[in-house]
């Protein structure tokens, strides 16, 4: 039993990162009804921010704190310069953001080369409790991710900003008639979603190989998490992330990564058939 614990902890850290990544997608989909296919590249930019910082000799935690700001600004730029013009054409937004993701990937290739970079793990060593040991950095990552997710949830549910955001998601027209600047709320939310993805990328950078193709590997599970959990509520996001991330990670470790992905995918389309809104559809956009 104790031997299985590291596998569960690995799955948990994957789930937390997935929820961070998926939350940005959900915010944008809930608020604007669009899918941002460049979201994986926002994750990527967070990881590369850490690479750059490492190259400049800056400490990891500074970079990890800067990454959400940098990527959040990038998100704002994307909203202002691209998304704003196609937001009323949801299918074209998917394509336009896909084109952007190609462009961003290529810029990264041009700047850093197509190969992978490695980021040094900022906290060496392992924590031993009882009979087993587990890498210390992973524990810290999980704590940080949980704190951020909880913080985001708190802001959403208990602050005025969160109230305004939820209002715009639920009824954008009525919100506008109440004097809420829905355009500004949407922009800020887009940037926040981007920042969360950037933070996820920065946190994960020491654990995986940082290369220009890494975005897609997290984007697909994030999509599946949203399909399964539902795009309308935090509960859905956490549930979807847990199911998809957990299955993917556990099956991937025990059986094979490919079989894990196939299983998760089959689960997702079964859920879609039976409950098109996901397990917790909430009251937002219908899929």
């Amino acid at each position, binding site marked *: 039993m104790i031997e299985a614990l590291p596998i569960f902890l690995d799955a948990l850290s994957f789930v937390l990162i997935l929820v961070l990544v998926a939350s940005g997608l959900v915010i944008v989909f809930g608020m604007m009804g669009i899918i941002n296919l460049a979201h994986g590249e926002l994750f990527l930019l967070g990881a590369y921010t850490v690479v750059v910082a490492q190259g400049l000799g800056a400490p990891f935690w500074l970079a990890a704190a800067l990454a959400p700001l940098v990527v959040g600004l990038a998100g704002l730029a994307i909203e202002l310069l691209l998304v704003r013009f196609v937001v009323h054409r949801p299918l074209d937004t998917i394509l336009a953001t896909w084109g952007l993701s190609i462009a961003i990937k290529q810029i990264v290739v041009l700047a850093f080369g197509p190969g992978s970079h490695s980021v040094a793990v900022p906290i060496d060593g392992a924590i031993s409790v009882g009979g087993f040991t587990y890498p210390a950095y992973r524990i810290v990552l999980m704590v940080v991710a949980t704190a951020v997710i909880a913080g985001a949830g708190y802001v959403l549910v208990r602050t005025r900003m969160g109230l305004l955001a939820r209002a715009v998601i639920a009824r954008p027209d009525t919100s506008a008639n109440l004097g809420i600047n829905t*355009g500004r709320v949407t922009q800020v939310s887009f940037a926040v979603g981007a920042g969360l993805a950037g933070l996820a990328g920065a946190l994960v950078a020491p654990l995986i190989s940082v290369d220009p193709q890494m975005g897609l590997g997290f984007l697909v599970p994030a999509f599946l998490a949203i399909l399964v959990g539902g795009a309308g509520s935090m509960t859905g996001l956490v549930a979807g992330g847990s199911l998809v991330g957990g299955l993917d990670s556990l099956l991937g470790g025990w059986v094979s990564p490919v079989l894990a992905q196939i299983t998760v995918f089959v689960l997702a389309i079964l859920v879609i058939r039976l409950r098109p809104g996901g397990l917790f559809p909430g009251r937002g956009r219908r899929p």
Partner: protein
Amino acid sequence: MLEFNNIQAGYGQLPVLRGVSLAIEKGTVLALMGRNGMGKTTLCKACNGLLETTAGSMRVDGEDVTGMPAFKIARRGLATVPQGRDVFEDFTVDENLCLGGPVPGAIYDWFPALAPLRHRMAGTLSGGEQQMVAIGRALARKPKVLLLDEPSEGLQPSVIHEMGVVLRRVVDDVGLTILLVEQHIELVQALAGSVAFLANGVIAEQVPVAVLSDTLNDAEGPVHRHLCI
């Protein structure tokens, strides 16, 4: 206080409003009536900025708000109670009310029935209670002009009557200007000072409410001419 000058608007290639001109004096209630499909809701949307007008101008308290985005028109003093109430079901009554701004205590004076329901989810309320939330939410903004789109829809007659009483009190207390889009004649008679009829995309006729009441059953009266087939 609220002025439309030759407003034209429509959906795509379909023109609906073909030149609507209306003026509502401060502190008065104007009812807008018309058959279904004549453009009453379209006028509401053009008024509060949800629909772009193709021609004409609009003023709130003398200020030209033509073409402004909806949230700016709202901030200039126009509050809307939309058709179907549109309360935020997953928010509490309090949260609904304070979405527009800090809630004046007067709201709970006007709607005493809402006071015990402050922390209830708006989605669990009855139609009449939701309507009070929707109106209260609009009034919490301390608006200069209140736009009500078919507030009686889906409500039972006793509730409609109560709503009329409350709105009458608000108008008297605060001197609010109201544009009331309505089908329900009794509510119009209770609240309005004058009545305008929208037909074929223009204001066909405007009469004081007394004339409406006097000619209610006249085949030649405005009600029959504009509202019955």
